[in-house]
């Protein structure tokens, strides 16, 4: 099945309906394995059990950023190829990405309290994550205020691409201002510095989170297509009523 076949919303919904139960099952299974491995993972010698927050915090941060990447690709799809599902994908990704970013901020703040002694520090990485959340809210505000969904999705696509410039700033802000937040330690030159006993559960959780994102995203896209159909049917109904009365 080529990507062009998926341009047909009916076919896309049929595919989603077929795939979704399996995706949900695999996601639940991976979360069960990941959480079990997380419980068995060793505590940190300084931070104790609070280090386990990391297994939620880090994947949420990755997904928060990845969702913007997906929105940017969808934005290209909307503006360049005019793919009919691209703006649906972009619109569905925004609230999910915002939710993951929010989870990252909340878990980070709960983790910061015992470790740094404060809920919030104006550190570069935290701040850029917060800015990312604000950008998500901006995109969502654009969708809300637009009275015509088509126009709104194109405006949001442009904003997504402009905001994509912000993603590298987030990624490299760690190197710019080296403050309280520790540097990147999973992906870096010379291999990971994390012990496998922590890295493996973390990676399982990352895959589980990614699958959760895919599941939610596909379901949200299906809902958005159905919502647009309802809107079209309502408009047609209103038009018929207006014609009947006139």
């Amino acid at each position, binding site marked *: 099945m080529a990507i062009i076949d998926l341009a047909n919303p009916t076919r896309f919904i049929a595919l989603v309906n077929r795939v979704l139960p399996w995706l949900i099952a695999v996601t639940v299974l991976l979360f069960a394995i990941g959480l079990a491995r997380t419980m068995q993972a060793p505590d940190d010698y300084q931070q104790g059990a609070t280090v386990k927050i990391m297994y939620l915090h880090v994947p949420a941060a990755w997904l928060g950023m990845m969702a913007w990447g997906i929105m940017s690709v969808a934005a290209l799809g909307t503006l360049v190829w005019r793919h009919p599902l691209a703006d649906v994908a972009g619109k569905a990704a925004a609230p999910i990405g915002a939710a993951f970013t929010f989870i990252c901020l909340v878990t980070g703040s709960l983790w910061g309290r015992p470790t740094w002694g404060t809920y919030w520090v104006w550190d570069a990485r935290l701040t850029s994550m917060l800015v990312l959340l604000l950008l998500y809210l*901006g995109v969502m505000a654009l969708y809300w205020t637009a009275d015509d969904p088509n*126009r709104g999705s194109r405006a949001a696509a*442009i904003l997504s691409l402009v905001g994509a410039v912000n993603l590298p700033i987030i990624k490299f802000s760690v190197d710019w201002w080296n403050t309280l937040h520790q540097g990147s330690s999973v992906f870096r030159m010379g291999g990971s510095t994390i012990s496998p006993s922590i890295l493996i559960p973390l990676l399982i959780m990352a895959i589980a989170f990614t699958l959760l994102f895919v599941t939610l995203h596909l379901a949200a896209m299906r809902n958005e297509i159905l919502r647009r159909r309802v809107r079209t049917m309502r408009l047609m109904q209103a038009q018929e009523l207006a014609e009947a009365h006139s």
Partner: protein
Amino acid sequence: MSAFVSLLKRDMRLAIRVGGGALMGAFFFLIVVVMMPFAVGPDLGLLSRLGPAILWIGALLASLLALDRLFATDHEDGSLDLLMMGDMPLELVVAAKAVAHWLTTGLPLVLITPLLALMLNVEPKALGPLMLTLVVGTPALTFIGLVGAALSVALRRGGLLLAVLVLPLTVPVLIFGVAAANTAIIGPTPFGPPFTILCGLSLMSLVIGPVAAAAALRHGLE
């Protein structure tokens, strides 16, 4: 190029004459800065330390507030449609409007900064660097705001939506603007690095702003 210059002149003339409200931004800037000491107290030591930050926030809000009308008036009277149908690339049209906007609202902000800096007890030796950061940084604010202005006129919504869209994108400009200005007052760190990054951000927004704004207008108003 002559079309660019004549559009620039037209926009500046419109802004300066009655109803244009070019100086309104400067007045707003003045009022925001004057309100600050009422909030933080008249302690001159504290004010001199906060001075660059207050001035930058004031400049940010003032340039944001004025952006609302950048395309809206032209859209209402139909001249925006004419400009879009003209020979000149829309990116250049948008850039000309932004430059005119900066000359009539951004530049006055920079020019009244010495007076306000004096009132906030900013050290005289810091005045030069502070103004330099504002000269370099305010165009970035205008060109980033350009995207928001284009998006909000395409959706026929203004005001708060514009602020919600634009403010998060101006964070880096604010950070490096204030950082560069502060090095002259507090920091032992050199003025160069944050200032050159600020210049880089300005140049980047100079490119991204018109392209994105033109795309927003094309997609929004067709």
